[in-house]
């Protein structure tokens, strides 16, 4: 091979190498961009847009996962459903924008008052759910009481008074999460029926336990 041919070949190789390097750099940048886009999409898929809490879809996933973990490790997980009292009246009196601001503020309280291991989400409308992994009854009630207290303490500038009702339940071995939700729902119903602004727990043996209520009977 002549020197001329060698030089030609070297220049060709250098160009191809530079082009390849540029392709790899572009690929790295695109991959990173794609990674961020995917991450952002995954977050969007599980996040409630208004409150930035987990959405119903994510809560369903966590409930299934907690049911499996509870079965595997023979422990319990708790559920608290929180419902804003007379939320429709707030919307009617102050408008939906004010309603949205309240939902966001309450979401912040729920988030800040929960432990990092708890999963806080918007269950729908003015209802929220907190899933508390690996918990027994008394600590679960303490969490609920603390939430009730923190919400009472908070001043919502948009409305004079804002109260919530809560339904609490805890899992039992072999029980489906749908059952546990049903009990929490029923407990919430009891709280509403008994004057609102209070928390009820409906346990597996069907007895009602009052938490922080002022005028509701316990059975």
């Amino acid at each position, binding site marked *: 091979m002549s020197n001329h041919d060698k030089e030609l070949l070297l220049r060709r190789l250098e160009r191809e190498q530079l*082009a390849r390097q540029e392709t790899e750099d572009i690929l790295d940048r695109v991959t990173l961009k794609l990674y961020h886009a995917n991450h952002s999409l995954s977050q969007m898929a599980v996040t409630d847009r208004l409150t930035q809490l987990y959405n119903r879809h994510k809560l369903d996933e966590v409930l299934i996962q907690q049911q499996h973990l509870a079965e595997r490790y023979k422990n319990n997980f708790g559920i608290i459903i929180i419902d804003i009292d007379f939320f429709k009246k707030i919307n009617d009196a102050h408008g939906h924008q004010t309603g949205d601001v309240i939902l966001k503020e309450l979401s912040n309280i729920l988030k800040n008052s929960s432990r990092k291991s708890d999963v806080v989400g918007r269950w729908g409308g003015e209802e929220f759910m907190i899933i508390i992994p690996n918990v027994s009854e008394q600590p679960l009630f303490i969490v609920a009481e603390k939430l009730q207290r923190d919400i009472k303490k908070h001043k919502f500038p948009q409305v004079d008074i804002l109260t919530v009702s809560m339904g609490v339940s805890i899992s039992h071995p072999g029980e489906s999460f749908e059952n546990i939700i049903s009990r929490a729902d029923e407990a919430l119903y009891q709280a509403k029926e008994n004057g609102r602004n209070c928390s009820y727990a409906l346990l597996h043996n069907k007895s009602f336990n009052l938490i922080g209520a002022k005028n509701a009977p316990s059975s």
Partner: protein
Amino acid sequence: MRGIIFRTYLSLLTNRFGYEVTDSILLKRDYPNKGGFSSAGNYDVLYLEWLISDGAYLFDNSKDKVWIDFGEYALVHLIKAAKRAHASEGLIANAVNLYDFLENINIIHHEELNKLYPDAKFPSFDIQRVNPRRITIGYSSDHHYPYFVYGLLRGCIEHFNDSSTVTMKRMDALISSPDKHASAYQFEVFGDE
């Protein structure tokens, strides 16, 4: 402009005239990566104009002829690349005749390319199927490459092994761009029914 266009043009030069000729053209100017264009890259269109201009001596000193030959070559090259990438699906794999293929060019441009390159400026094609064997294509672009489109259309005819003819005429009335360099042409592809 997309790097694949640069690479395709250099591949035309190399295949037809040898790498020594390509090398001599690349050495004439200061190109990014010393002329090592990446298919995935994006480069100033000025570089392509330099390459075309410096290659014109190989095509009877006619830049228009460079563009036409480049268009013909690019069509075949791009179809091969597209078939490699999408072996069994998509417009190219599914196209069975020249006219159906041309009629659907806008699908590629307006949907697929815009998704891939949201910042890029693509030419627009106003396609009218006059009859099964006659199609008119209005082309307007901020870049002035009608001879490249003409070459692409000739490449299409060749690819489908069709005996049709393509004609081109300037249509300034079609220009909607405020860019004074923008141009509009109408192409007509027709054949015996």
